[in-house]
C-alpha cells in the first residue's frame, strides 16, 4: 500500500499512507479515534476507491477493485460489528464463503461431503465448538467473532483484514483470539488488524502502523512504538493539567448526579459492569479509558439512549431517572452532546438552536440564542447557513450551544475534540473552561486525555467496562495506569490488574 489517500467532503481521511504487510506477519493499524484507521481498511478491501496511491497484492495492482473481486483474488475481511448471515447456520455461513463467489448451478446443492469436511475443519481450527447446525443468530458475541474469522478463512485468502476483532470480547476470549491470529499468520497469511486493545496489539504485532489525522505518524515494532514521542502525544494529547490558573470554584456540596451499580449490555455482550460514580454540582469530571472501555456507553446509559440496555440506579440530584425515557431525562436536565456532533444538517444554525430549546417553556429564546452567539461568535456569522455546511469545529460548537439551550443540570460531552484540528480543540476546551467557571456541572469523555484532564476536577479511569481508578484529575494524570490503559504494555497491564484487585 503506497501513498494511499482519500477524502470525504473536504475531510482528508487518509493522506499518503504507505506500509507493507508481509505474509506470515501480523500488521496492526492503530491510532486515536478519527485517525483514519477504518477508512484505510475500507480502502484496502475495496469498499472505497482511493483518490491516490496504489494497493499491490504481491505483484498485482489491485487498486480500486470492488470488494467482491478483491475477495476472489484473496483479500478476506471481518467486520467491526460481526456480519454473519443470521438466518443461516454456522456451517452454511462457511460453506457459502468456501465457494469464493462461484455459486454453481441454480439447482445444485451447496452442501456436499467434501466441502462440509473442510468447513468443519476450519471451525475446529478457529475454536468453534458444539453443534454446527445452530443458527448464526443464536451464537454468543465471542462465538460469532470466531465463526466470522473461520468464514473469512474459507476464502483461502492471502490477506486477512480484521476490523477491531477484540471489541466487546472478555479477557479469556481475547487471549484465545490472539493465539488464533498468530496461528493464522503462521499459515503464511498476511494478517492486518485495526484494533484499539493495546495489550493485544503490543503482544501480537510484528509491525505497527500508527495513524493520526489521516497521516502515518509512526511505523515499527511494539517497543519502538511504545517509546515514540509522537505516538504518546497523539494518544494522550499535549496539554498538561494544572498549568493554567484555575478560576475559583464554588464550594461543592451534595450530588448533581449519582450512578449506582450500573450494568449495560449491547445484545448479549456486557459493555458496563457495576459502575458507581458521583458528580457534585459545579464539578467537572473526566471519564477516561481506551476505545471500547465503555465511556460512550456510560454516557448513553445516563442519558437513557438505547442501545445499550442498562440496569442500575441513576439519580439526578434527588430524583431517580433511570426509569425515564431519554426525552424526559433531557427535559429534566441530563443533556448529552453526542459523539460525532449530530447537528441537524438540513436545518439552519438558528433552527438547530431553536430546537435545542424546544422543550423549555417560558423562555426568552432570542436572548438565550444571543447569549450563545456571545459564547461562540463564529456561529453568529453563520446564522442562516445550513448546519451541514459548517466545518467540523463549527458543528461541534453548534452542538454544544444547542445542548446548553436545552437547559442542562448536567452537561455531558462525548468526544468533543473528535476529528478537529488542534487550534479548534483549544478554542472548544477554552469555552468548556468558561462553562466550568460559571458553575456548570460537566462530564467529559475525550480521546485527548490531556485536554479532558486539564478541564476536569476529578477523573474516572475505565477499562473493559469497569472503573479501574478514580481521583483528582492531576493525580490521575500522573498515574502510570492511565498511560497503560491508552498505550498498553504487558507489565503495566499486569500492574493495573493487581491494583484493581487491591482496590476491590
Amino acid at each position: 500500500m503506497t501513498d494511499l489517500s482519500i477524502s470525504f467532503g473536504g475531510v482528508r481521511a487518509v493522506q499518503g499512507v504507505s506500509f507493507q504487510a508481509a505474509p506470515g506477519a501480523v500488521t496492526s493499524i492503530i491510532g486515536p479515534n478519527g485517525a483514519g484507521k477504518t477508512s484505510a481498511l475500507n480502502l484496502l478491501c475495496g469498499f472505497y476507491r482511493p483518490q491516490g496511491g496504489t494497493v499491490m497484492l504481491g505483484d498485482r495492482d489491485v487498486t480500486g477493485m470492488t470488494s467482491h473481486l478483491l475477495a476472489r483474488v484473496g483479500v478476506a475481511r471481518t467486520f467491526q460489528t460481526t456480519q454473519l448471515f443470521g438466518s443461516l447456520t454456522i456451517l452454511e455461513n462457511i460453506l457459502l464463503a468456501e465457494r469464493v463467489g462461484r455459486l454453481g448451478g441454480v439447482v445444485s446443492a451447496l452442501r456436499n461431503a467434501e466441502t462440509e469436511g473442510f468447513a468443519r475443519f476450519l471451525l475446529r481450527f478457529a475454536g468453534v465448538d458444539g453443534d454446527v447446525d445452530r443458527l448464526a443468530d443464536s451464537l454468543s458475541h465471542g462465538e460469532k467473532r470466531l465463526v466470522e474469522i473461520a468464514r473469512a478463512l474459507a476464502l483461502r485468502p492471502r490477506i486477512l483484514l480484521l476490523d477491531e476483532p477484540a471489541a466487546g470480547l472478555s479477557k479469556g476470549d481475547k487471549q484465545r483470539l490472539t493465539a488464533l491470529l498468530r496461528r493464522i499468520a503462521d499459515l503464511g497469511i498476511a494478517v492486518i488488524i485495526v484494533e484499539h486493545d493495546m495489550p493485544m496489539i503490543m503482544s501480537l504485532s510484528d509491525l505497527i502502523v500508527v495513524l493520526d489525522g489521516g497521516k502515518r505518524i509512526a511505523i515499527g515494532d511494539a517497543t519502538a512504538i511504545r517509546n515514540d514521542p509522537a505516538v504518546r502525544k497523539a494518544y494522550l494529547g499535549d496539554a498538561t493539567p494544572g498549568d493554567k490558573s484555575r478560576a475559583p470554584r464554588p464550594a461543592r456540596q451534595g450530588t448533581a448526579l449519582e450512578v449506582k451499580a450500573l450494568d449495560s449490555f449491547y445484545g448479549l455482550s456486557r459493555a458496563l459492569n457495576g459502575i458507581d460514580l458521583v458528580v457534585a454540582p459545579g464539578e467537572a469530571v473526566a471519564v477516561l479509558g481506551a476505545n471500547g472501555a465503555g465511556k460512550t456507553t456510560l454516557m448513553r446509559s445516563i442519558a437513557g439512549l438505547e442501545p445499550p440496555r442498562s440496569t442500575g440506579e441513576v439519580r439526578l440530584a434527588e430524583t431517580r431517572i433511570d426509569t425515564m425515557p431519554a426525552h424526559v431525562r433531557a427535559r429534566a436536565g441530563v443533556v448529552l452532546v453526542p459523539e460525532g456532533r449530530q447537528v441537524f444538517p438540513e436545518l439552519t444554525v438558528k433552527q438547530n438552536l431553536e430546537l435545542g430549546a424546544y422543550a423549555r417553556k417560558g423562555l426568552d429564546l432570542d436572548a438565550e440564542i444571543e447569549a450563545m452567539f456571545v459564547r461562540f461568535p463564529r456561529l453568529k456569522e453563520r446564522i442562516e447557513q445550513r448546519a451541514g455546511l459548517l466545518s467540523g469545529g463549527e458543528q461541534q460548537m453548534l452542538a454544544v450551544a444547542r445542548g446548553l439551550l436545552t437547559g442542562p443540570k448536567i452537561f455531558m460531552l462525548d468526544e468533543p475534540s473528535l476529528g478537529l484540528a488542534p487550534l479548534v480543540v483549544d478554542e472548544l476546551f477554552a469555552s468548556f473552561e468558561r462553562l466550568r467557571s460559571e458553575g456548570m456541572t460537566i462530564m467529559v469523555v475525550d480521546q485527548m486525555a490531556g485536554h479532558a484532564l486539564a478541564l476536569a476536577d476529578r477523573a474516572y479511569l475505565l477499562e473493559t467496562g469497569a472503573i479501574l481508578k478514580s481521583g483528582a484529575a492531576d493525580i490521575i494524570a500522573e498515574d502510570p495506569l492511565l498511560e497503560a490503559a491508552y498505550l498498553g504494555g504487558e507489565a503495566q497491564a499486569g500492574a493495573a490488574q493487581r491494583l484493581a484487585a487491591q482496590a476491590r
Partner: protein
Amino acid sequence: MISRASLLIAVAAFAIAIGYAAVADSYAVFLIATISLTAIACIGLNVLLGLAGQISLGHIGFMAIGAYTTVLLMEKAGWPYLAATAGAIVLVSIVGGLLALPALRVRGPYLAMVTIAFGFIVEHVTIEWRDLTGGGNGLMLSAPPSVFGYALSERSLAIAGIVLVFAGLFLFERLKRSGWGYAMRAARDTEVATRSLGIDLVHVRAVAFVISAAAMALAGALFAPLQGYISPSSFPFLQSVLLLFGVMVGGAGSALGPVIGAALVVLLPEALSDLAEYRLLAFGVLLFVVLRAAPSGIVGLVEQLVAKFRPRASPRPGPRSRRRMSIRRSSKRITRRGST
C-alpha cells in the same frame, strides 16, 4: 436433502390432487387450474420475496406479458402452444433481467415504486397498442391449444398445472439449497458481508428477478388458454398485491407457503362472493389478522404448533425451525417495508 417422509407425503398429495382433478366437476376443475397457476406465480414471487428479500408490486406485468406473448405467437405467428409458452418464458426472462438493472439500484419503498411503475407501463401498453394487443377489447384464443395433437381441455390444463406446481416446489427447494439460494438469503441478512465473500450482489439479485419473472410468464401461459380470452383488465394492479398477499399469508421463504397462499387467494373470493364489494374489506382484515397472529405465515404457524406439541421431536434447532426463523425474518422485513 429432502427427507423420505416428506417425499412420501409429497407423492401422496400429488396422487390425490391428480386423482381429484380427474374426477371433479367442471367448476372445481376450473378452480384447481386457477389455483395451480396462481401457485406457480406465487412460487416465483417467493424466490424474490422469500429468498432474496426483495419486494415487487408489479409482478402481474410479467404475467401479462407472458399471456399476451403466448396468445400472439399462437394466433398471429401460428406457433404451437408449447413453443409459444417457451417463447413467452424466454421473452419475459429477458424483460425481467432488463427491469432488474434499474430496479436493483434502489431498495425498500423505492424498489416497490419502480415495480409498480413497471406494472402500470405494461398495463398501458396493452391498452394503447391496439394493433397488436386489441386494446381494451383484448385477445381471443380462436381454438383450445393442443399439445402433440391432443386438444387441451380445462381438465388437462388443471392436471398440467398440478404437475407444474409440484415441479415448481421441487425446483424451489433445490434452488433454496443451492449456492445461489444461500447467496440470496445471505444478501438479505447482510449485504457487505456477502460482497466480502466474493459474491456479486447484482448477479444474485438479477437471477432472483429473472427466475421469478419466468415463473410469472409460465402462469400467464396457463392463464390464457384457461380463460380463452385475455384483456388488460385480466391483469389489474390489485392482482400483484394479491399475489404478494398469497406469499406472505402462506409463509414467505417456505416452499409450501405460496401454494397455501395461492389457494386462499383463489378460494376466499369464491367463498366470500356473497359479500360482493365488501370482499376486499374482508381480505384486508384477514391480512391484518394473519400478520398479527402468524407473522411467519400459515406454514410458520403450523410449524410452531407442531413444535409445541412435539417439543422432544427436535431438541435442537433442526432444519424445520431454521426455516421458520428465516420466514419470520423475511416477513418482518416485509411488514416494515409495507408500512413505509
